């Protein structure tokens, strides 16, 4: 035990020290992808919508490093813009769902009793809906647009986040240190902010990673079905759908965006696993 006071900077340094090479690689990749998305207009060699050649599915060449798509547009540029849209949507969705889900989940846990009962019952009922069905029904009624997509998926995600956040908070609310704050006479807001939140941060960060991945996969699936992002706008899922026939010509244009999605999701999942493992126990090595 050292006398050095632990600060967030110290914790950060400690966390960086704990990074294994694999996890560090994933982290770097994610940072790179986010930068690519943010600076897409400056990075991409061409405009995403510009038709550069009348040759469909041309092979990679000096001008077009990843070849062209079915309309003769540059696959690399479209990939970079696709990443931008996918990440942008997924981030908004995850932030929205966290804002609502954690807020409501903590609220239910803090008030307990009947408030909690009814909120959780309603949430359970929503959870008895398969996520994709809910999305399809809404899209059927409202059509697909960014706003519809974001709010629908954020809502679906919120029901999942609510459950996790509530469970976390309920487990913390029964700790003696919360009871100590209650006997002191602290208000619910203070308790949630100063006692519950700091102890829920790590698992919530992990959950954020999981939800973020889920949002990416979900948007991609919807786009792939033709019900997500609508052309001329395109994300990674749309690119897969548009270029499905390329496979039949033996070109791998379709696979780039699909693997792009997978790589982002894998990196995120590796990071989440590492985060969770940092605070877990081991098992007997005999069995």
């Amino acid at each position: 035990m050292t006398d050095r006071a632990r600060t967030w900077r110290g914790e950060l340094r400690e966390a960086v020290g704990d990074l294994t090479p694999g996890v560090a690689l994933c982290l770097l990749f994610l940072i790179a992808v986010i930068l690519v998305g943010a600076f897409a207009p400056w990075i991409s060699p061409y405009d995403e919508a510009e038709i550069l050649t009348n040759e469909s599915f041309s092979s990679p060449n000096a001008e077009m490093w990843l070849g062209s798509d079915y309309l003769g547009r540059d696959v690399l540029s479209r990939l970079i813009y696709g990443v931008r849209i996918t990440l942008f949507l997924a981030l908004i969705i995850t932030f929205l769902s966290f804002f609502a889900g954690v807020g409501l989940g903590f609220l239910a846990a803090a008030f307990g009793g009947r408030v909690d009962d009814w909120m959780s019952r309603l949430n359970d009922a929503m959870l008895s809906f398969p996520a994709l069905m809910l999305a399809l029904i809404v899209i059927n009624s409202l059509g697909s647009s960014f706003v519809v997509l974001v709010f629908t998926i954020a809502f679906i995600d919120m029901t999942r986040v609510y459950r996790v956040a509530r469970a976390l908070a309920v487990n913390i609310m029964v700790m003696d240190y919360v009871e100590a704050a209650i006997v002191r006479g602290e208000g619910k807001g203070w308790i949630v902010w100063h006692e519950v939140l700091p102890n829920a941060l790590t698992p919530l960060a992990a959950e954020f990673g999981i939800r973020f991945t889920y949002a990416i996969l979900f948007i991609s699936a919807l786009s792939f079905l033709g019900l997500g992002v609508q052309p001329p706008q395109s994300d990674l899922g749309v690119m897969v759908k548009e270029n499905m026939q390329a496979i039949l010509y033996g070109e791998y244009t379709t696979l780039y965006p699909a693997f792009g999605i997978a790589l982002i999701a894998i990196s995120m999942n590796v990071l989440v696993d590492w985060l969770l493992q940092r605070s877990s126990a081991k098992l007997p090595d005999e069995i």
Partner: protein
Amino acid sequence: MTAPLLEVRNLDVSVRDKKGREFKIVDNISFDVQPGEVIALIGESGSGKTTISLACMGYTRPGCHIIGGTVQLGGTSVLDLDLPALQDLRGKDITYVAQSAAASFNGAMTIDAQVTEIPVITGTMTRDQALAKAARLYRDLELPEPESIGKRYPHQVSGGQLQRLMAAMAMISDPRLLILDEPTTALDVTTQIEVLYSFKKLIADNETAAIYVTHDLSLVAQVADHILVLKDGKMVEYGPTEQIIRNPQHDYTKALMAAAHLMPEEIHAPPALGAKEPPLLEVRNVTAGYGPAQDIIALRDINLTISAGETVGVIGESGSGKTTLGRLISGLMGAKQGGVYLDGKQLAPSVSQRSREELRQIQFAFQMADVALNPRQRLNKILGRPMMFYRGLSQSEATREVARLLERVDLPTNFAWRFPPELSGGQRQRVNLARALAAEPRLIICDEITSALDTIVAQQILDLLEDLQEELGVSYMFITHDIATVSKISERIAVMRHGRIVAQGPVNEVLTPPCHEYTQVLLNSVPEMRTDWLDEAVAERRRLVAALD
């Protein structure tokens, strides 16, 4: 002298932390167990006593490694055996009784299936033979319905019974060596001596050699022939029981002796008579319970007063309602009937209806300091917040006050910038107490604050409580299951059973015969440092319990 049954030499066990650094948790331990002899491993938490006993079975917990030394059991080198040979040894030659039987029994199998498992699958007994032997052991252990109790599932029997059933499981193969790991620690005091007694009888009748692991020196004096005192994985003192008890050589052993759960030589004088002032706190005719309509009654007709500057002990076993009473006074639950009065003025039933000033005067100190302190808050915030909340101090004033408060509870002032997980158990308990003091209260409700601590540390906390009372004139309501502890520091006590106060008054009156039968049962359960105490105590206890019901 015959060859020892078990010979442990220079045992070293290390554990690897998250960063891959090795720590020795058992350092150069050597001891012998003669056939038919009981040796006690004594030490506080972290002394390595459980690790040593497990290593005798060739087992280490995840993350631990045996890095040196030998364990010989009747000529076999245990640490050199491969897994199948170890499996053969365990459950037959060496058996184990775990601390928490409730967790260690498999919930998906009947008790009989688990007790008879090893002899049946290894073919040393037929199923019927094994069942018959199990029933015999159940009877020897004085379990109720020995013929049918084994057909139940673990969750269908009580904790004390499970602990005995686990002993039956350990004894069914007639082991050469029995390891008992804190087998009575999880039990109520009055159940504890019964279970201890049946263990002792079982070991003696079968002439089994045993290793008894515990933190409680006074208990072990009843069963052990030799005692090995451990501290931080190292051997402190090793010798025959009589010698260790009568003439301890090492300072640490002396400290352990001094802090043992024994009745104090002298108990508090009665409080000064003729209390002129009205009591600080009064509980009048309170009945309370759980459930929506409070129909599961936990407290019945409770009357209790606490005057300024005095300590009132509330004693009872688990389920007696003592903690419920503390929660009721502090406003965590309301009463069905009756009320709580502070300076003669009735308090609102719930925290949210009480004024800040009322709340400030009654503080609550929780049992487990490791869960009572938010692991993500610095001590400066934990201790400073009550000052700001009740006394309206500014942040900088509070920080100054925190330093003074830390000094008062004998902690270094730079601890203010630490988080609770960076402190030891005893230090955390001091912080826990300091948080209550930070409000400058007139009454602190201490809920089992010393029960989870090692004996020496617990004694230090008790000393601190007395010093603080002298200095600040604060009153304590001291809730505990341990009559020895409570009689050390209380002026008056209340004895609780099944939600009622069965006896109360000045400590010397309540505890001096003739007293209530239940009080006698409790008194009778306090170990004495003589080797023939247990048999007398059990005989006495049975007479008392028969009279009580």
